[in-house]
């Protein structure tokens, strides 16, 4: 029963993702006109704690975490092609913000501060590395996660004498509502950015950075700005999810795997359309929750094989397959010519 509730809500999320993708290219009045269904989907999601068993929205919170990481990651890394592996760092910053401030401040304030600190970190990282070639950026962000966890571990051993921290817990529905709120904010931000001149700038940077610079776009500023914005949601998500896990230590808070998963999910879903990462995150996160309980020792293997298979044979991801099917239905045999 819980699974059915979860699946309905996952479909709602996928629809909203598709709607945002569609809405970016329409004029504003049309968007308002057709947003009815999307709003209904949102209501379905928002009222889940009212009609679903606790397990359903706990599971959905976990899936929303991956959704937030994946879609935020795609916000920057999708159009520009700069593969960021710092997602775990921003998420971890959020976790530790909860750990340090959670006792003294209300939940929402902690979440917002978590987002803000992530922004600052992202701005610093971006300013250092986004001036250089993409490979340095990838490599730097990869090491950043390990660096922060090393520093924290050293600090904890040397100064506080403990390893890991306890976090004030929050109730499951608070967690769910806040995660849903962050997701909605993220969708809105993605929609606004893609419609604005910055979204266009980002795309032109991704296609040909030098040409974009020649057109007068302040390439570094745009990159740093969008990179920082994408970090907000990751930080906020980290802050609130920490209140579910209650105990964290540097290695589990800053786990590089949490940087790789958004990349995998986005590529699996397909990077060419906005709903691709949504699709990928929803499917893989659901699978992960299911597989983790039954085959905890093979799921990394499964994900690795999926990643290799997608890169080798399905470069467009699931979206690529979906679009091919749609084209074939719409235009018949001559679809792919």
């Amino acid at each position, binding site marked *: 029963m819980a699974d059915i509730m979860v699946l309905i809500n996952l479909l709602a999320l996928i629809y909203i993702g598709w709607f945002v993708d569609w809405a970016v290219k329409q004029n504003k009045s049309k968007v308002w006109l057709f947003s009815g269904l999307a709003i209904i989907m949102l209501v379905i999601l928002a009222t889940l704690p009212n009609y679903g068993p606790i397990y359903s929205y706990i599971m959905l919170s976990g899936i929303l975490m991956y959704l937030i990481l994946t879609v935020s990651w795609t916000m920057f890394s999708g159009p520009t*092609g700069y*593969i960021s592996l710092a997602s775990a760092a921003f998420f971890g910053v959020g976790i530790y913000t909860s750990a340090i401030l959670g006792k003294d401040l209300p939940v929402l304030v902690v979440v917002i501060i978590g987002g803000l600190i992530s922004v600052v970190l992202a701005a610093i990282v971006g300013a*250092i*590395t986004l001036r*250089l*070639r*993409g*490979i*340095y950026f*990838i*490599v*730097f962000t*990869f*090491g950043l996660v*390990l*660096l922060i966890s*090393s*520093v924290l*571990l*050293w600090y904890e*051993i*040397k100064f506080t004498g403990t390893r890991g921290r306890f976090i004030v817990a929050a109730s499951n529905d608070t967690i769910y509502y806040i995660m849903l709120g962050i997701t909605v904010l993220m969708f809105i931000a993605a929609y606004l950015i893609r419609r604005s001149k910055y979204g266009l700038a980002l795309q032109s940077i991704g296609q040909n950075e030098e040409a974009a610079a020649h057109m007068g776009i302040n390439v570094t500023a745009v990159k740093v700005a969008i990179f920082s914005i994408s970090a907000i949601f990751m930080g906020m998500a980290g802050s609130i999810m920490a209140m579910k896990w209650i105990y964290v230590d540097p290695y589990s808070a800053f786990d*590089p795997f949490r940087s*790789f998963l958004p*990349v*995998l999910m986005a*590529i699996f879903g397909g990077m060419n359309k906005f709903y691709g990462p949504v699709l990928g995150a929803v499917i893989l996160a659901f699978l992960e929750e299911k597989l983790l309980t039954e085959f905890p*020792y*093979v799921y*990394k*293997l499964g*994900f*690795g*094989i*999926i*990643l*290799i298979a997608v*890169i*080798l044979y399905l*470069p467009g991801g699931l979206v690529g397959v979906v679009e091919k099917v749609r084209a074939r239905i719409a235009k018949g045999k001559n679809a792919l010519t």
Partner: protein
Amino acid sequence: MERFLDIVIAGLLLGGLYALIAMGLSLQYGVARVFNIAHGEFIMLGAMTTWTLYTVFNISPLVAIIISGPVAFVLGFIIHRTMFRKLLSSSANQGIFESNSMLASFGLMFVIQNLAFIIWGPEIRAYNYLTETVSIGGALFGARRLVTLAFAIAIGVAFYIFLARTRIGKAIRAAGQDPNTAGLMGVNINWVLALCFGLGAAMAAVAGVLVSMCYPDSAVMGQEYLTVAIIVVVLGGLGSIPGSFIGGFVLGIIGSIVAFYDPGLTMVAYYAIFILLLLIRPKGIMGK
């Protein structure tokens, strides 16, 4: 003075290992243009198989070097011929190939790491071999560390001679400069790229064997060594194999100095150097 010698020699010992690890990655990225994220896993495989060979079959790690090198080479060669060759033909340009191959190597990393986890479990493994100490200039060093250094230098020098003096070495250098033109000049480019990838994997595995002699190992040890390899490769200069060799020793000595004051800060120090490098001289020591 004795302290100083202590630190320098310890730094060289560490540096030899780093140089070996980085050279393999540099070969794979510099020539085959694959930024192999799974490099750390080959190191791990070398280490763990050595542990198994020693504790179960009583085969000496030095013999394990001779076994694991060629096996890793074949594995790397096959992986390149199947996976990365397919990507080469399906990628529209160099940049796309580089990012696709890097992502594919991610997948490879997951696969190898999980397989190792299934085979060896999560426990940390270690064994004792060549634990006698040798005295140099009044300071004591483990014999195994000196053997590690000797091997690292020997392999480094041998590889340099191979690159500089043999025909295949010339082909590799040509492929590194311009794969297309090299192909036009008669170099069997597909074969050479796969060869380089395989050689890189072999170097990683041999480094893994040496690491296992000196440090405890586990199925998840790859990531930290990968990070060090990446930092050394950037320090030495992306695309320069001699640079990686020198960079390894430089980082090793720095690591040894930092470890003298506070061992917990070595990774932090490496990273700080990395940041400084990116800010001041991203090309590294010998980068193009």
